């Protein structure tokens, strides 16, 4: 499951993360997953699974999220974020939250930018995340 995290969250951010950023995202996801309650953990697993497999399920193509275009990944998440099921919308909020946690993980990044991410020109748009371990 954990390998799916960077791709799904990359779709939330609009670009696929590089290796370092993917590690930070996975790290943030792991902490959220470990410390939350059982219901939330199930929800997260379902959310990831849904986001990962839904191109296959919804579009009838034998492709998982990694293999569809970034535009289609985004389109999927837009559909999830506007869905009438509150749980699906909550999933998108959760994805955004984890992406933001990774982005602002280091206090330095927050202080340096003071709510303004200085370097957004990198490959992911996650800005200072590049400096995460």
């Amino acid at each position, binding site marked *: 499951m954990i390998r799916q995290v960077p791709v799904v969250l990359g779709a939330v951010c609009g670009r696929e993360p590089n290796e370092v950023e993917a590690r930070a995202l996975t790290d943030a996801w792991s902490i959220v997953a470990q410390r*939350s309650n059982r219901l939330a953990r199930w929800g997260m697993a379902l959310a990831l699974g849904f986001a990962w497999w839904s191109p296959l399920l919804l579009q009838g193509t034998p492709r998982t999220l990694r293999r569809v275009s970034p535009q289609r990944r985004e389109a999927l998440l837009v559909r999830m974020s506007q869905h009438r099921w509150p749980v699906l919308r909550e999933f998108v909020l959760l994805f955004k*939250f984890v992406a*933001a946690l990774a982005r602002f993980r280091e206090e330095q990044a*927050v202080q340096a930018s003071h709510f303004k991410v200085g370097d957004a020109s990198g490959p992911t748009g996650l800005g200072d995340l590049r400096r995460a371990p």
Partner: protein
Amino acid sequence: MRPVQESSADVVVVGTGAGGATAAKVFTDAGLEVVLLEEGPRINRGAQPRALLDAMAGAFRNMGSQATARVPPIVFLQGCVVGGSTAINSGIIWRMPEDVRRDWETRFGLHDLVSDAVLDQAFDTLDRDLGVAPVARELLGGNGLLMEKAAMAMGLPGEVISRNAPGCKGSARCLQGCPNHARQSMDVSYVPQAESRGARVLPLHRAQRVVLKRGRAQGVEGTVLDRVTRRVCGRFRIHARRAVVVSAGTIHSPLLLAQSGVRHGLLGRRLQSHPGCAVVGRFTHPVGMGTGATQTYEVPQRSRGYKLESLSLPPELLTVRIPGVGAAWRERTQDLSRYAQWCVQARMEAQGRVRGRLGSPRITYTPTPRDVARSTEALGVLCEMMFAAGAEEVYPGVSGVPPIVRSVDEARALKGAPLRAGDFHFLASHLFGTVCACTDPRHGVVNGELRCHETDNLYVMDGSVFPTNMGVNPQHSIMAVSMLAAQRAAERLRSTE
């Protein structure tokens, strides 16, 4: 077999939040030997995490993921740390409103706890002890100042929030734990005061059962948790010579009582709350949400059943509220300095229930249609206020309406939008009612002394004993009521020596 830590005290208090810490202080002042049990860790001065992720992992119950089981999933935020939820709230102080006092007197017989003479005296003491005062002008921050501007423009009855943070430096980090220990949460006020008089605080001790024999609480049993993994690494048993006080909060107090063998038809029922949601506005100029106190300005609309507040959040949480995904979201989150965020807290009439076991509660709570209408109206007012303050676009943050509102007319139209409960992303931190107090044992689990009916020395002192919600922030009321109940309990315990 893990070893069992054995010890004893006059009074064992389960929980170090507003109720438990206040009770412990009163008991130690009365010369009683007290042990305070806390499931969460103690976070020492200077050790508060800077990153929100670490703060949530260290101090929030279930990392802030405790939610109701039905649609809509409502997040119930609670602290799980020495100081309880007082260590993660904004320190907003309100006295119990007049209408709530009269209601509790007439319907629940709680005259001894809420009559004006005794309650206001307790509030005066708390105000002095915790340095309660309105937020200083220089700490209002850009977020609060904008809300003040909007309230004045629309003729709404706004006011500066009163807080218990006399040395606040405006670092807007209440949620992560005050870095300056300015907010007088229980971990820096009543808990250390109780410790200075001999109380022992045992963090990472999870109470599992109050030992009851022949109508008397004999002590508390539970497990010791590892600081890093939070897995069980030992067991404890503490003998209570005089009394046990359960102050585990509105979700866990009823579960602990049920696991201990207390039986009552109302245990875990009548869960009430003030769920809220937030609105974000984007301005053409920097707002300065990262400076000033976390919450500084409010617009109470008591007759309408809601309260509007400014709420400065860390960027990790603010970005979640910004609409869109992918490139559009990334673009909007590049410069977070131009956003302001305000929230609504609705006094809902819905009543829910807590079931299950300690550690895995099943919480059900569904807002009624009237609650939804109330929240919808408040949401529209907030959006209108944003435009009155000069916002260029506003994000209502609910499904079923446009994600971006661009004019004041669109904002006004929101007040009558046909929204359902499932369209909102509600969050609540004010919880009440699952161990309801009433002098009539048929209508309350605890009596007017906050002692369980049918038991001699088992008390409950936290928000769970409140028979109704209040429409205002409850910390001060929980502390005042606990103070009065603990004073009477101490007198009673000494008289039966």
